[in-house]
């Protein structure tokens, strides 16, 4: 089963990380992803550009509305995501518990629907 893991960080938390901590964390992320890939459990991973680049689109009564910014303004920002393959939720939690971002931010785990259509 596939699980989408959304990585959220508070900007203030990110600002507080020292350069040496940051490089250590990036190294940890690299190792973590390599290991996950070797096990064949990494489906996809991406980092997102900063939230200031976000654009939100809605169509209402035939009129397109395009606005600057994310869908919801929150203290925590979506920084990236992992798509992983895990047997069940416990395994997904075990995997994500070792992801370095969990020590600074939060990771939301969402199971992927089998079918694209309802």
């Amino acid at each position, binding site marked *: *089963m596939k699980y989408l893991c959304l990585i959220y960080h508070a900007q203030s938390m990110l600002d507080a990380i020292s350069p040496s901590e940051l490089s250590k964390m990036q190294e940890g992320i690299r190792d973590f992803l390599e290991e996950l890939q070797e096990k064949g459990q990494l489906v996809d991973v991406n980092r997102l550009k900063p939230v200031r680049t976000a654009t939100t689109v809605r169509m209402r009564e035939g009129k397109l509305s395009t606005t600057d910014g994310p869908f919801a303004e929150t203290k925590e920002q979506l920084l990236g995501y992992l798509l992983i393959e895990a*047997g*069940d*939720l*416990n*395994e997904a*939690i*075990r995997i994500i518990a070792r992801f370095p971002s969990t020590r600074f931010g939060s990771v939301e*785990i969402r*199971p992927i629907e089998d079918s694209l259509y309802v």
Partner: protein
Amino acid sequence: MRREKNLSAVLDDLYRAESRRVFATLVRLLGDFDLAEEALHDAFAAALEQWSRDGVPASPRAWLISTGRFKAIDAIRRRSRFDASLAALAEVLDARAAETAEPQDDGHLEDDRLRLIFTCCHPALAPDAQVALTLREVCGLTTEEIARTFLAAAPTIAQRIVRAKAKIRDARIPYQVPSRDELAERLEAVLAVVYLVFNEGYSTTSGETLTREAIRLGRLLTELLPEPEALGLLALMLLQESRRAARTTADGEPVALDEQDRSLWNREWIAEGLALVERALQSPRFGAYSVQAAIAAVHAEAATAEATDWPQIVGLYDVLLRIRPTPVVELNRAAAIAMRDGAATGLALIDAILARGELADYAPAHAARAALADRLEER
């Protein structure tokens, strides 16, 4: 072979004693709570019909499990004529059934109950959903009974249970006992739920089944993982339950601890509880359950109410207050101090707690205050 006219009574007893065990195993075999519930009821319906003809089988529990499984696979197969995706499910379940031909030994069944407990108490479920689901699925309470316990509307509880089961299915929360390194963490949630179940049974005179059930769950947990807090909780439940016969009058009126006939206390459970407390407190990792059990143990060891070792109880409340700094613990500590140092000292403490307002609506606080005030006046 039992006679036919007793069959519905036999089935009633069997349902009460075994239905949740059978259910726990059916969840493992069928991989779904709702399928298992349906299979359980089909199995009992089949028993009513078949046993009246052929008599009660030697192992009713094993019969119910295999019949339930058979009925479930059969029902899925019939429905698969209209829904092709179900055909595959029926095949998988059938294959699994062939693999585990004789899974009904006692060890397996106890494991299944534990699996069910850990799944119902999974931290990915909201705490109120964990409690509702455990009472419903592990203990077999009806939605209405659960609603009464929590002073909630039955539809609210029903929705909570439906949502929890949907999350178990959709997010694929596995039906398993956590691994050794996760067990301690997961145990905490389980203990909280077990104690709530115990309290549900403790507060009613007819709740003996529930308290026994909670104690049984407690025993099972201590066997699997003799963590100090699991031992402490079991001790606490045994020591509290040991007073059941003395706790109420024949009319069901509550009898205060200092007025209870201590010869009615269950000595066997007290002995077991005392041994457990001792084991729990030997570990540096003991917690609130173990300390509460230790307090209950001091009461249990006193031959009369007058002989109670109040200085020791106050000391234990000091420890408890550090672990669990709540106004209710403070209140109980104040009541113990009143017994050690006199009513006036206790009354001053209780007034200070009440002045903060958190316990303004907590009836036992006002009752404790009134009792102390009475004692002062009597002198």
